[in-house]
């Protein structure tokens, strides 16, 4: 491994440590790293992600500029040059380094932007305490994203039961942390699931809302594997492709997640190791199920005394909304089915009309009936498109958000668990103190030392957990606000799109009937 990819703990701001080998956010010890920064960092525009050029101005110059310089001095083959200023996102010259193995180049990139992301995304919530929520919201409003992902070209690879569908994931970005401006890789469904697994393990502990990938479907996939080229398999693949695209777009829109090395690796790395824990019937799968069950039990037994009613209110809101969306989704589903029926029935009717037109012996009427049959044929086309629009724009939007709301609830659960940990630590501390008191009374000095050490340890743990809890609370609040904004934006844009599609459909309908009317009038 190259020296530059050594994982050193992040240097103190004062130290002129030239080592750019900063901790990967992916690294487990990033949590410890954050503690070092807590006192030092000023409230920075928090985990807002990566795309604001003005961020440089807001950064505390001491912390980041040094790292900038540090990284620039040692970043030899690294394409990312931030040598001009503290603005990490100056237009970078992206040259993909092919001689370096993908992973270490990755590490370097993440290394240079690592400290920023680690520090900002993980510790800033704590440092954020002085900042008010309003300021938060204001800053959120200045978001702009510079990453665009698209998923195209689903292709079946392989044969038989081992076949899978590979999708082309193309990214277009102007962010400097990527190796180039546009690039694409091929990924399969389990890769997406793997990414989700990695992210949820890391980030959910902090209270982030992780977007959810589309669900597995054994039936759907088997059909595709077996090689049936029928319309339902095609639809299945298309549905999955669209869902994966939405999933990925949501991931890159999330400021903290975009910083995550796993995400970048996913987008850039040509050869991703296969995610093995995502198979439904694997050992990991079972473990997950068991964990979920135990979590559910835990939830039932914990009763948290809520000091902040915001959380309770929000939680209920989320639950109510989820229910409403489910109802709406069921109706939209029914609409999709009825439209598909209408489609089929219209096609059949059109044929029948054509036959009738053939038998009709009055020529003008016969022609008119044939024309009617054609109009109905075109209507069938319209209905088909409308049904697709119903489904892909409306129904999928709803199902996405139903699951996302579930993820939001998950966040709240994380916070609850953090509270639980804190409470448990407090009770342990209490016990230790009692133990110490007992020892004092029993006058056993040798054990007293141990007891005192225990107490100090647990005292620090209690403070740690309390801080964690507060931090998670902040993150959850922030995330929920961000989520709600996203949701409002998403719903509005999607529904408008849906209405536009309806509008187009009506316009074409008008054209069809206008063409038919003179034919009908011409019947003599």
């Amino acid at each position, binding site marked *: 491994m190259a020296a530059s990819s050594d994982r050193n703990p992040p240097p103190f701001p004062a130290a002129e440590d030239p080592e750019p080998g900063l901790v990967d956010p992916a690294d487990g010890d990033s949590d410890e790293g954050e503690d070092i920064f807590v006192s030092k960092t000023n409230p920075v525009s928090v985990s807002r992600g990566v795309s604001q050029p003005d961020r440089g101005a807001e950064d505390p110059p001491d912390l980041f500029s040094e790292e900038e310089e540090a990284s620039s001095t040692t970043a030899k083959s690294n394409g990312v040059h931030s040598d001009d200023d503290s603005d990490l996102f100056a237009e970078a010259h992206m040259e993909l380094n092919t001689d370096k193995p993908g992973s270490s180049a990755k590490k370097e990139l993440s290394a240079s932007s690592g400290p920023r992301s680690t520090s900002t995304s993980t510790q800033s919530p704590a440092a954020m305490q002085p900042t008010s929520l309003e300021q938060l919201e204001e800053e959120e409003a200045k978001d702009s994203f510079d990453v665009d992902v698209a998923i195209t070209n689903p292709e079946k690879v392989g044969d038989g039961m081992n076949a899978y569908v590979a999708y082309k994931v193309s990214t277009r970005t102007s962010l400097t942390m990527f190796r180039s401006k546009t690039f694409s890789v091929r990924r399969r469904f389990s890769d997406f699931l793997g990414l989700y697994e990695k992210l949820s393990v890391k980030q959910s502990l902090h209270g982030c809302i992780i977007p959810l990938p589309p669900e597995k479907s054994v039936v759907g996939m088997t059909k595709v594997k077996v090689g049936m080229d029928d319309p339902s398999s095609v639809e299945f693949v298309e549905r999955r492709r669209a869902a994966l695209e939405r999933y990925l777009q949501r991931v890159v829109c999330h400021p903290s997640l975009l910083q995550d090395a796993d995400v970048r690796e996913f987008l850039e790395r040509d050869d991703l190791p296969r995610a093995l824990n995502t198979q439904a019937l694997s050992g990991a799968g079972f473990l997950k199920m068991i964990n979920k069950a135990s979590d559910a039990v835990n939830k039932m037994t914990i009763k948290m005394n809520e000091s902040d009613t915001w959380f309770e209110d929000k939680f209920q*809101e989320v639950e*109510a*909304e989820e229910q*409403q*969306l489910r*109802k*709406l989704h069921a*109706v*939209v589903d*029914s*609409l999709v089915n*009825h*439209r598909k*029926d*209408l489609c089929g*029935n*219209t096609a*059949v*009717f059109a044929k*029948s*009309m054509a*036959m*009738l037109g*053939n*038998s*009709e*012996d*009055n020529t*003008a*009427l016969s022609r*008119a*009936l044939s024309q*009617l049959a054609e109009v109905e044929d075109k209507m069938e086309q319209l209905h088909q498109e409308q049904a697709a629009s119903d489904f892909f724009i409306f129904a999928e939007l709803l199902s996405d958000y139903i699951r996302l709301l579930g993820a939001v609830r998950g966040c709240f659960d994380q916070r609850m668990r953090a509270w639980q940990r804190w409470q448990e630590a407090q009770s342990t501390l209490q016990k230790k103190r009692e133990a110490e008191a007992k020892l004092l009374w029993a006058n056993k000095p040798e054990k007293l030392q141990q007891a005192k050490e225990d107490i100090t340890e647990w005292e620090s743990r209690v403070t740690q957990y309390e801080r964690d809890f507060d931090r998670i609370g902040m993150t959850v609040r922030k995330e929920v606000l961000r989520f709600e904004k996203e*949701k*409002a934006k998403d*719903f*509005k844009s999607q*529904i*408008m799109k849906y*209405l*536009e599609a*309806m*509008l187009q459909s*009506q*316009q074409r*309908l*008008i054209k069809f*009937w*206008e063409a*038919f*009317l003179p034919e*009908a*009038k011409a*019947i*003599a």
Partner: protein
Amino acid sequence: MMEKYNRRVKAADVTTPQSSQYGFLTGLSPQSTLPNFKQNEFSVVRQHEEFIWLHDSFVENEEYAGYIIPPAPPRPDFDASREKLQKLGEGEGSMTKEEFTKMKQELEAEYLAIFKKTVAMHEVFLCRVAAHPVLRKDLNFHVFLEYNQDLSVRGKNKKEKLEDFFKNVVKSADGVLVAGVKDVDDFFEHEKTFLLEYHNRVKDASAKSDRMIRSHKNAADDINRIASSLYTLGTQDSTDLCKFFLKVSELFEKTRKIEARVAADEDLKLADLLKYYLRESQAAKDLLYRRSRALVDYENANKALDKARAKNRDVLQAETSQQLCCHKFEKISESAKQELIDFKTRRVAAFRKNLVELAELELKHAKGNLQLLQSCLGVLKGNT
């Protein structure tokens, strides 16, 4: 002289639909007096059974063998509506008050629409009879229109229904035999083949149009529920998004009404048209059958006459019989030709009228929808 009837058919108060026991007023006011009508304007209440009785009396009348008997109006069918009402009642607990009242109103409107349609179809039957130069003079018809008491027409009892059934079986078997007889007359030969094919295709088209329109109605119903659901979402809060939902819900309410009207109009102009011509083409087929039957009888009578002449026995009887058959056959043939030509003219005219109206209505509704969508999108875009 074609007398025009100014027909007023008013629906009587029907509060609960009991299968065939519904009555309605037929207000008939002939504008010019017919000598055999006792008054100028009169109205009676008639039940569906009585219409069937009238129709059957035409069919059974030998004198009318050469005419296309206007098809009987179909039985009023409120079953589907009643079922839906029942289901609604059962599901009352699972939906909000607004949803329930809304759906109830919908069903009541649907019920009313079906009722109106049924009444209209009965009226069409009577108008057809009144427009026919011969049938309108029928005594039964006059009794039907004038006799202001119950005609005491009972529905067929089991025995009669069984008789009818057998009669139909015999008739269709006979029809097959008779149909095999090749007609010398080109006109009738052509008509036979044409009607057979046409009838089958109309039957097919009618069934398929029904299915299509039902899907359309279902989709409109769904849009109704979507509107309600969006409304609930919109009333949760007063955020921007909620206001958005409310606006969209309003839009869907309106478009749904239009969609429902589109389905109803398609039903009226297309499905009903096809159904009607299904029945008329059947009646025309029946006419052809009767004529073929008469032809076969005529040919048989000819053969019998030849045989009688050969044996020189019962010649007079055979001659009379042959004369009768010949006369009957020729009479039928003559009127049948005219009837079939009229049928074609009527058919073309009806199709023209309905297709034009259908196209115009479709356009009207689509434009309405378009306008709604445009204005809503305009408002929504302006707000965001």
